[in-house]
C-alpha cells in the first residue's frame, strides 16, 4: 500500500463547495503548504472548519471561503490575524458560524461518532446561539428534563493535517507537545490528507514512541504529501518554531496583498521555501516559548 501523492494529485481530489477541516491550532502545526496549494488553485466556495490561524487568514484574502466555522482566529504571538479581520470588516466573508471552541470539538466528535449531535450546555445565554439559529435545543429524557444545546455534527469532506513523520501507508507520528484536535478532524472527514516533515519506513519507528505519538489510525488517511517545512510559517515542534518575522510580513500584507501573493503564492512551493530563506533557515527557527 502506498498513499504518497503529489500536491497536484492532492488538489485534484478537492472540489468547489467542499467542507474542509484544517488541523493544528492558531500558529501551531498547520498544514500551510496544503493551504497555499488551495490558494494557488481555482477552487472556490469552500466551507472551512478550523482552530484558526494564518490558514484562515490566507484563504480569506484569497477569497476561497464561502463559510467559516470557527471559535477564534489568532496568530498566537500576534493576537489577531489582519487578513481575517479585513475579510470580516469589509464584509467579504459571506458566512460565519462562530461557536465556542468546545462546541467545535463536540461537532467534530459527533461527526466522528456518526451521531447527529452531542448535547452540551455550552452556548446557552450567549449570542453564539442567537447568531446561529440552526443550532437547536434538546430536552434530557431523564428526570432532570434539562434543556441542552444539541451541537450538530460537523461532517467534513476533507481534513488537512501536518505531522512529523509518516510511512507510505499513512501511519503517522506527531511529536509536538500538543496533538490538538487532529484526530477528531481525521475521524470527522471522508478523506484526510496529511503533509509530513519526513517520509519514513515504519520499521524505523521507535516502538516506545509509536504508542504515544500515533494519534489516529492509518485507515483514516487517504493521501500523504511529504513536505519538510510544510507548516511554515507556523510551528512544527520539535523541528522549528513559529516564524514571527514572516508572520509580521504576512500581517502587514493584508492591505497590500499583491506583493505577498507575488512572492509567496504565485510561485510553486519549492520557490516559496527558497523565498523564505530555504529549508535550513526554516528548520533553524528556534522553538517558540509561550
Amino acid at each position, binding site marked *: 500500500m502506498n498513499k504518497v501523492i503529489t500536491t497536484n494529485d492532492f488538489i485534484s481530489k478537492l472540489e468547489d463547495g467542499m467542507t474542509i477541516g484544517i488541523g493544528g491550532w492558531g500558529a501551531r502545526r498547520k498544514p500551510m503548504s496544503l493551504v497555499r496549494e488551495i490558494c494557488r488553485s481555482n477552487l472556490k466556495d469552500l466551507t472551512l472548519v478550523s482552530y484558526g490561524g494564518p490558514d484562515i487568514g490566507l484563504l480569506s484574502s484569497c477569497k476561497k471561503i464561502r463559510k467559516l466555522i470557527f471559535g477564534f482566529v489568532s496568530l498566537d504571538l500576534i493576537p489577531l490575524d489582519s487578513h481575517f479581520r479585513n475579510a470580516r470588516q469589509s464584509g467579504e466573508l459571506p458566512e460565519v458560524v462562530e461557536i465556542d471552541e*468546545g462546541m467545535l470539538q463536540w461537532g467534530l466528535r459527533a461527526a466522528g461518532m456518526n451521531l447527529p449531535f452531542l448535547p452540551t450546555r455550552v*452556548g*446557552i445565554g*450567549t*449570542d453564539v446561539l*442567537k447568531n446561529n439559529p440552526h443550532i437547536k435545543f434538546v430536552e434530557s429524557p431523564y428526570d432532570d428534563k434539562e434543556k441542552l444545546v444539541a451541537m450538530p455534527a460537523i461532517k467534513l469532506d476533507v481534513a488537512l493535517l501536518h505531522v512529523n513523520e509518516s510511512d507510505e501507508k499513512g501511519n503517522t507520528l506527531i511529536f509536538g507537545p500538543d496533538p490538538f484536535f487532529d484526530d477528531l478532524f481525521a475521524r470527522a472527514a471522508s478523506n484526510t490528507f496529511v503533509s509530513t516533515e519526513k517520509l519514513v519506513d515504519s520499521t524505523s519507528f521507535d516502538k516506545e514512541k509509536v504508542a504515544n505519538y500515533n494519534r489516529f489510525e492509518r485507515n483514516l488517511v487517504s493521501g500523504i504529501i511529504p513536505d519538510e517545512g510544510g507548516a511554515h510559517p507556523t510551528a512544527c515542534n520539535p523541528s522549528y518554531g513559529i516564524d514571527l518575522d514572516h508572520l509580521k510580513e504576512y500581517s502587514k500584507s493584508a492591505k497590500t496583498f499583491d506583493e505577498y501573493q507575488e512572492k509567496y503564492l504565485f510561485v510553486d512551493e519549492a520557490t516559496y521555501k527558497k523565498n523564505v530563506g530555504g529549508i535550513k533557515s526554516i528548520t533553524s527557527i528556534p522553538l517558540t516559548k509561550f
Partner: protein
Amino acid sequence: MADQFTISEVCICEAAKVWKDDGEILATGIGLLPRIAVGLAKKLHNPNLMMTDGEAFLIDQPHPLGVGAEPCVDGYMTYSRVFDVLWSGARHAMVTPTQIDKYAHLNISSIGNYAQPKVQLLGVRGFPGNSISHRNSIFIPNHSKKVFVEGSVDMVSSVGFDADGVEPLIGKVITNLGIFDYQGNKNTLRLLSIHSTSSLDEIRDNTGFDFEIFSTDETTNPTKDELDIIRNELDPNNLRSSVIGE
C-alpha cells in the same frame, strides 16, 4: 510596606489574591499581568494551584517571563484536556475582555454590527463554556466607557446575570482604577476599593453604567514580599510596565 510601586504591581498583587481559597484547581491567567498574578498566587497564596506553561504542560513553579527558562514540568495539559478540566469546573481563569456590561457579559468577538463588524476581534474562543463552567475573574488595563459599556456588549460571548437557568461565576474585576466584584444587589457591579492614583469621580466618568459602592477605601498597597517576588522572580525584565500606560 514598600514605598514605591506601580499600578501594574498593585493590580498583580490584588489579582493574585483571587485564587487564594480555590484549593487544588487549574489557574489560568490569560495575558501578561494575569499570568504574573497566577505565578504570585502559586508562590504566596495557594501552592496547590495547577498552572500551565502556556503550551501543553503543567509546571511545578512559575518560570520568569521572557528569559527562556526551562520550567519544571510535572504534568500534561493539552488543549483537549483543558476542556475536560474546565467542564468539570476545576478551573479559575482571569481574562481581559474588550467589552463588559452591567450583566457581566463579556465580549472578545467583535465590535459593531455582527454581519460586518467595525472591529473584528479574536472570536468567542472558549468564553461561552468557561462562563457556565467555572469562575472567571477579569483584568481591565484601560478602564473606560469603551470597555464598561452603556447597554449591552456588542457580541455576548459569555453568560450574564440576565440569562435563563444559568448564571456566571464572576470573581473579582481588577482594573487600572480600582477593584470590583458583581456581588451588589441583584448582581450589580460593586466597587470594593480605589487605587491611590484614581478617584471615585474618575471611576464614575469612565464606567458606562451604574455601580454600587461597597467601599471607597484605597486599594491595599503591595507588600515588600509581593514586590520582591514580582520584580526578582516572576518578571525580572519588567514586561509588566508596558501593560498599563502609567
